[in-house]
């Protein structure tokens, strides 16, 4: 084909596109390490969550202090988990475990919470579809659909779920809870959606331990993935193939 000589105009357009693109890139980089795109990462209220993010957590058991329950207390306060002085049935979204190696005597202290599995057994067994994995990896109970059958509680290898046995009042607006439904850690979904860290992570940090790191497992630049790249970490009951979002170091 014969090349038409009248392609000067598209060329000019292309050139101006490149100039504008270069200007755009210059604008996005204000200074070394300070980029505007970082500021726009937070989710807007009107946008839905997507699978590009997978929320996860690393718990460094070497930093977790024996007897410290800052994370548990923060969770109870954040979600208004008040007990009825019945430890066997009172709601508990996060609990502290004190473990000891019988042979060596080495003691561990660690918080146990919903592990936010990628293949959660609680979702498999739920007869109504109330248990579900949100696109960003957070495992939740839709209490509007939950019939309180407690299959999920039996299926969960981590004993992470609680059933509400009593009528409740004075709930927190961001944490609706009611009799006859099952509940568990939500990764503080109401905070995460507004770009904050979960209450337990914040409390651990404020207590000076920094044993919990929360972040996006899919983002290679997140603090979480950077630390996961350096520290050896394990999933609890990795043999079950659940691909947990919560990982532990030092166990």
């Amino acid at each position, binding site marked *: 084909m014969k090349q038409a000589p009248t392609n000067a105009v598209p060329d000019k357009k292309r050139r101006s596109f490149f100039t504008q693109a270069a200007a755009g890139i210059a604008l996005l980089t204000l200074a070394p390490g300070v980029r505007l795109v970082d500021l726009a990462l937070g989710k807007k209220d009107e946008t839905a969550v997507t699978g590009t993010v997978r929320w996860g957590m690393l718990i460094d058991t070497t930093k977790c202090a024996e007897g410290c329950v800052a994370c548990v207390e923060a969770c109870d306060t954040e979600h208004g988990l008040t007990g009825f002085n019945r430890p066997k049935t009172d709601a508990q979204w996060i609990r502290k475990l004190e473990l000891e190696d019988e042979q060596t005597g080495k003691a561990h202290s660690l918080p146990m919470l919903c592990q936010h599995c990628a293949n959660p057994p609680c979702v498999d067994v739920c007869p109504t579809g109330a248990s579900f994995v949100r696109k960003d990896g957070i495992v939740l109970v839709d209490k509007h659909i939950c019939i309180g059958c407690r299959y999920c509680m039996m299926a969960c290898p981590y004993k992470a779920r609680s059933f509400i046995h009593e009528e409740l009042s004075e709930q927190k607006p961001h944490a609706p809870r009611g009799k006859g439904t099952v509940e568990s850690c939500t990764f503080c979904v109401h905070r995460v959606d507004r770009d904050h860290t979960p209450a337990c992570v914040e409390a651990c940090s404020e207590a000076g331990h920094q044993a919990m790191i929360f972040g996006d497992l899919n983002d290679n630049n997140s*603090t979480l993935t950077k630390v996961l790249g350096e520290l050896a970490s394990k999933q609890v009951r990795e043999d079950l193939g659940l691909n947990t979002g919560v990982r532990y170091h030092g166990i």
Partner: protein
Amino acid sequence: MAIVPWLILMTALSLLASVELAGAQVLGNSRAAELDQCVEPTEFMRRNHMELLIHQRDETVHRGIRTKNHSLVECIACHAEKDSDGQFVSINAEGQFCQDCHVTAAVSMDCFQCHATKPDVNAQLTGLAIAMTRPNCQR
């Protein structure tokens, strides 16, 4: 007989009127009282608020959409009335915004078996405190 449909129509109209007159009145000492209208026209809200709520509930729980206009938390934040001591009264207490109309219409609501009935007075403060102390979330 031509009078039968007429009677039915009159009865239906009077029932509707009694619902609209007796309930759904914005209470004086609430944020809503200061506004011209709700998030949608009043007539629409009276008939369809439940549709908006059930839609928003799924959007929020499953998709993480947290817009405020059709959220139950915001309904309560705006419509809850303060008593003479400046304390919020439960929105489902007798004579309060939600309860009043639902009693008249004989429709029970089970929202408040789980959902908070009063606005969280500390919510904004906490949000601000978080923003100030922890500007960068560990993502």
